[in-house]
Structure formats: structure tokens, C-alpha cells
């Protein structure tokens, strides 16, 4: 029997990109742009669906290339074009709960570029993940966005 536990955490990350807010927003909104960064480090996306609109739901299976065991079930809750994206996602590993997150991405103009502020409020379930590890994964993805919008 699984010992049940919940650890709550809040992760805040800020980035400044040289591209305009519309370009950074498109990194989420356009499937081709999102595929370039939507997984941490050297992990791979095995399957992914897109439904980027308020109320839209997406599924993504991902992980290390020899064992893409994680599934993220994302729901878009609030979208303001070029300004804000609020979404939730639950993560499971072979069907076992890992975490549930509420993530806010706020974009604002910064000269000719963009300031991005990501806040992820997370409930980590049954000791399957932690804030330090999640922050590292999110930071990796935000860095990839920086590379993709600069190209």
C-alpha cells in the first residue's frame, strides 16, 4: 500500500528574452514552436496532443528516451494572448500520481524584448518528486525557449 503524502511548493522563475512578447507567446500557442522546448534537458516526448485554448486539454507522454514513463495531463484555464497563460497539469508515472500543478506564465514587454515570469504552485504527491527537481526541469525548458526565440 502506498504511503500517502502531500508536499506543497511554489516555484518562481524569471527570464528576459530578446524576442517580443508575441514571439514568446507563440512558443506555447504553436505546436511546431512548442515541440522545440516542451521537455526538460535531454528527455524526449514520445506522444503529444495540442489543444491550446481556454478549456483545451492536452496529453503528453515523456521521459528518458529508453523509458518515457511520465504523462502530463494539461488543462488551459486562462489565456490572454501575448500576456498570460494559466494552466493546470497533473503528472503521473505509469499511472501513479506524481504531482498536480497550477502554473502561471506572465509576459510583459521589456524594451524590444520580453520579461517572462513563471510561477508554478505544486502539490507533490506521495514523495514522487520535489520542488528542487521540478525547478531544475522548468528552468531547463525556459532556457530552451530562449534559444528557440533567438534563432
Amino acid at each position: 500500500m502506498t504511503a500517502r503524502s502531500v508536499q506543497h511548493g511554489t516555484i518562481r522563475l524569471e527570464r528576459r528574452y530578446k524576442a517580443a512578447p508575441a514571439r514568446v507567446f507563440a512558443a506555447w500557442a504553436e505546436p511546431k514552436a512548442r515541440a522545440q522546448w516542451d521537455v526538460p534537458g535531454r528527455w524526449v516526448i514520445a506522444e503529444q496532443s495540442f489543444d491550446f485554448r481556454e478549456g483545451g486539454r492536452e496529453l503528453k507522454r515523456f521521459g528518458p528516451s529508453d523509458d518515457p514513463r511520465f504523462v502530463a495531463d494539461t488543462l488551459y484555464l486562462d489565456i490572454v494572448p501575448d500576456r498570460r497563460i494559466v494552466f493546470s497539469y497533473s503528472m503521473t508515472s505509469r499511472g501513479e500520481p506524481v504531482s498536480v500543478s497550477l502554473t502561471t506564465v506572465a509576459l510583459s514587454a521589456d524594451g524590444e524584448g520580453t520579461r517572462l515570469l513563471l510561477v508554478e504552485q505544486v502539490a507533490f504527491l506521495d514523495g514522487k518528486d520535489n520542488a528542487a527537481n521540478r525547478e531544475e526541469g522548468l528552468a531547463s525548458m525556459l532556457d530552451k525557449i530562449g534559444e528557440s526565440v533567438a534563432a
Partner: protein
Amino acid sequence: MTERSTKHATFTIERTFSAPPSRVFAAYADAKSKARWFGGPEDWEKSNLKLDFKVGGRESVSGGPPEGPIHYYNAIYQDIVPDERIVLTYELHLDKTRISVSLGTTEFKPLGSGTRLLYTEQAVFLDGYDDAGLREQGTRGLFDNLARSLEMQ
């Protein structure tokens, strides 16, 4: 152009009940039981509570004071462990304006023959509708209703 802003807040509420975890959990899992305690102050006019209590299932209820505004609550269940845990996300609209989105975790733990309930809400308030204090106060009121509902059974 509308001023866009986000403000994040977290609050926790702990309550103990003399009823065992299975009974407290049932007050969440069954639509009729939940409607007895969930949905705003007594003088509000309310819609019927709709509940599809399963992972991925939805819940909705609306209501408000006679003079308005109408509060619309829409939730989605993210994780359920019977008698132990419920994780959901919900959004709240005031009339047509979405004012917040929240991640709510409810943990049910045995305490003697009763239950210790721990509720944690991680919320983002949108566009200046910053009411973390009010939200916590309103949520505490719901738990008062839950306690009364459990005592009456």
C-alpha cells in the same frame, strides 16, 4: 486596455471532526451530501450543485446575494484517493469575469475515531481581484457548514 496582473497566495486550514475519514470523505464524494454544506452563505440564491466525482470529472455550482454578483464555481478533479485525499483545481467567476484559479488539496487523516482534515489552497488572483483574506474566510465558513452537516447525520 485591461490592466493584467497576477497575485499568488497560499493558505491552509486545519479542522478536526468526530466522524471517521470515510464519513467526511463521503460528504465530498456524493453530490447530495456535498450540496448540504458547499456553496456560499445561507442567504445566497444557489443553483443545483453538479458533481462528477472522478479524476477528470467536473463540478459546478453558482450563487450569490440577491443584489449580485453571481459567483460561478467550476472545478476539475485531478487526484482522488478514497478516504484519504482529494486534489482539484477550480476557477471562480464573478458574473463574466474570471477572478481566480486555485489548486486545492484536501487531506483526510484518522485522529482517534475521528478525522483531522487539512486543506491547502494555492491560488492565483487575476487582474487585481486580490482577496486571499476573503477567500480564506469564505472557505473557513464552508468548513463550519461541513461540521454542522456531519453533526446532523
